[in-house]
């Protein structure tokens, strides 16, 4: 695997960095403080091709490879983790599964709209009684009168309020566990789907995180994604890609913390000198930089494997758990370097600190990631 990005990758990275600098940095604090959905910025991101990054051009996407994708995600997250979450869900959790598992007709029907920003996607897997134990979900899907009837409640759906297209997992077969689940593409306009409670969150506050309530929601047959009973497989394969996206998000957050802390350490003077001259601070920054580099490389490795179509569940889990824990650690240390100022809203550190936490939780908690890694490790030996 080449660790050096190609010319094209560099150009994409610098374009997204410029976009993030112009469009996201100036508004990130306000989006967080007022829980404002970044509608205008998303439109501009869609214009650039960022809403369907890995969708092939024939379906209106940007046709990027996974390396370019994670580079772009890191740039977005560095500026605004919440914005990147919205983009990441649309790309990895909605466009990707349609691309891999959808019929030609489904791809043509939904991908161009998702890539162009005309539709926004959301992912409905988690339920009140099934989080980590996702495959025990209970939302039911009954095939009757030539259509599907979905009933159940999904929670913690990112972009639940604003999304038009929901990828919903429901139990359609008798079998318990993964094999009984099917995946459905549910448009908000279908009868019987509504947005429920919106969570007030610790971080990524520009995103909406809501319940999606399905009450005999009627879904046409042609909106089944993949085969009946294939939903479990789809969910797990999709999460691999999602994990890489979250790893990139965590790398972006960690980088933001490190950049701010390093700049501050050179500027803030105490006891007659910049605090960056004190060993305690130096060592912390060195550790942060090292961990960041490692997290990024793990993320790139997972992306590279996925791009080549090789199995990447283990590497994606490693990247996600390591990068998210790096983000938390770095945010914690960065706030400390800023001291009292880091605790105030005048500086972005407290937002990074609050944003970082979610990366250890969603799309598979760190505990689940460790399970995946261990299972993979022990199965091989």
């Amino acid at each position, binding site marked *: 695997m080449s660790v050096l990005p190609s010319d094209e990758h560099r150009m994409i990275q610098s374009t997204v960095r410029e976009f993030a600098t112009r469009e996201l940095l*100036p508004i990130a604090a306000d989006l967080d403080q007022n829980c404002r959905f970044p509608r205008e910025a998303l439109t501009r991101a869609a214009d650039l091709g960022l809403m369907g990054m890995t969708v092939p051009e024939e379906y209106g996407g940007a046709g990027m490879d996974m390396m370019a994708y994670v580079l772009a995600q890191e740039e977005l997250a560095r500026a605004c983790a919440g914005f990147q979450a919205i983009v990441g869900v649309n790309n990895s959790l909605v466009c990707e599964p349609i691309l891999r598992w959808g019929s030609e007709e489904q791809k043509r029907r939904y991908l161009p709209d998702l890539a162009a920003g005309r539709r926004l996607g959301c992912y409905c897997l988690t339920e009140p009684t099934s989080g980590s134990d996702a495959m025990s979900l209970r939302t039911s899907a009954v095939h009757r009168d030539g259509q599907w009837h979905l009933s159940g409640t999904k929670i913690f759906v990112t972009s639940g309020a604003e999304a038009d297209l929901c990828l919903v997992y429901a139990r359609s077969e008798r079998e318990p566990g993964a094999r009984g689940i099917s995946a459905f593409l549910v448009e908000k306009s279908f009868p019987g789907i509504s947005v429920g409670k919106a969570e007030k969150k610790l971080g990524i506050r520009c995103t909406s995180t809501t319940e999606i309530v399905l009450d005999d929601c009627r879904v046409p047959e042609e909106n089944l994604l993949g085969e009946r009973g294939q939903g479990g497989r789809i969910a797990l394969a999709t999460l691999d890609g999602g994990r890489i996206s979250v790893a990139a998000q965590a790398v972006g957050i960690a980088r933001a913390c490190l950049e701010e802390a390093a*700049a501050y350490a*050179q*500027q803030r003077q105490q006891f007659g000198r*910049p605090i960056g001259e004190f060993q305690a601070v130096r060592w912390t920054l060195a550790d942060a930089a090292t961990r960041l580099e490692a997290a990024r490389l793990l993320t790139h490795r997972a992306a590279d494997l996925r791009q080549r179509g090789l199995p990447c569940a283990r590497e994606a889990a490693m990247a996600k758990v390591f990068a998210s824990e790096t983000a938390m650690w770095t945010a914690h240390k960065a706030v400390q370097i800023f001291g009292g100022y880091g605790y105030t809203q*005048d500086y972005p550190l407290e937002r990074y600190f609050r944003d970082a936490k979610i990366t250890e939780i969603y799309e598979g908690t760190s505990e689940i990631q460790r399970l995946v890694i261990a299972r993979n490790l022990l199965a091989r030996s």
Partner: protein
Amino acid sequence: MPDILVVATAPLGTLSRSSLELVAGAHAIRGPLGLGVTGLLLGTGPGLATAPQALHEHGVARVLRVDHPLLTVGESDAYLRALEQVARRENPEIILVSADTMGRDLAVRLAWRLGAALVTECSDLASADGAVVASRQVYGGRAVATLAVTRRPAVLSLKPRSLDAPAPDPVAGSVEDLSVELQQGELSSRVREVLREQSDVGLEDAQVVIGGGRGMGGPEGFAQLGELASVLGGAVGASRPPADSGWVPLTWQVGQTGKTIRPALYMAVGISGATQHVAGVSGSRLIVAINRDAEAPIFSVAHLGIVADYKEIVPALVAKIREMRGQ
């Protein structure tokens, strides 16, 4: 005697300051090069009647004057043609033009037409061994290039506000009126409208300038700077990013591309100090920089530095000054 031709203008009837700066440049090199100095006034209207006087008062005895109705404000192509005709008749050794918005392209195009050597945007003029030696700032002001011009004729354009105005040196002078051939139909460009932007204190003349940069965060921050400028009797300027973003009018821009200023006090607020901005302000007597980033390049040219958020300093400074004045 072979001559240095100084191209002067007198908008609004008085000889422009940049024209006087050219005169200073001419005087600096005339002696060693054994050249005379002739002033050339171009324009139109009654203002041209009195302008030669100012040249006589600064040691320029021989003044040529071209008064033509097509030589109105901004009419570059007409000025170029007029200048070319005079230059071909007079055959000066050296032609000095001010590198203001009109002079910038005039000097270049004239040099081409006359087959002359050309140095633009000079910040200083000297001579050595019969050659004109010009200095100019390069790389956003990080370096200074020295160029020697050994060929004649030579056209040189001088950056406004680089040289001091010359000391008064009244001489008995003459004014010769010249005629030029100009046809409106021949002009390749014509000014349709002149739009002036309002400004209370001229940025280039202000003794105190408060400059705002990207660190101001938006147009609102400039209101605070306006208050500070007001209590100090100065003007507000800006570096390029605020001008480009439309936070302030383009005419507020100070820097290599905008205006070069040399006030007694320049305060750079939220300005990183990268490259070209610094080139426009480095001649200021006292430069005070306020920036949150201690590594900002502005601190390498500032005399006084404050590493802080401007919001914590500027309003308090305004209040303190008002308090001192018992307002």
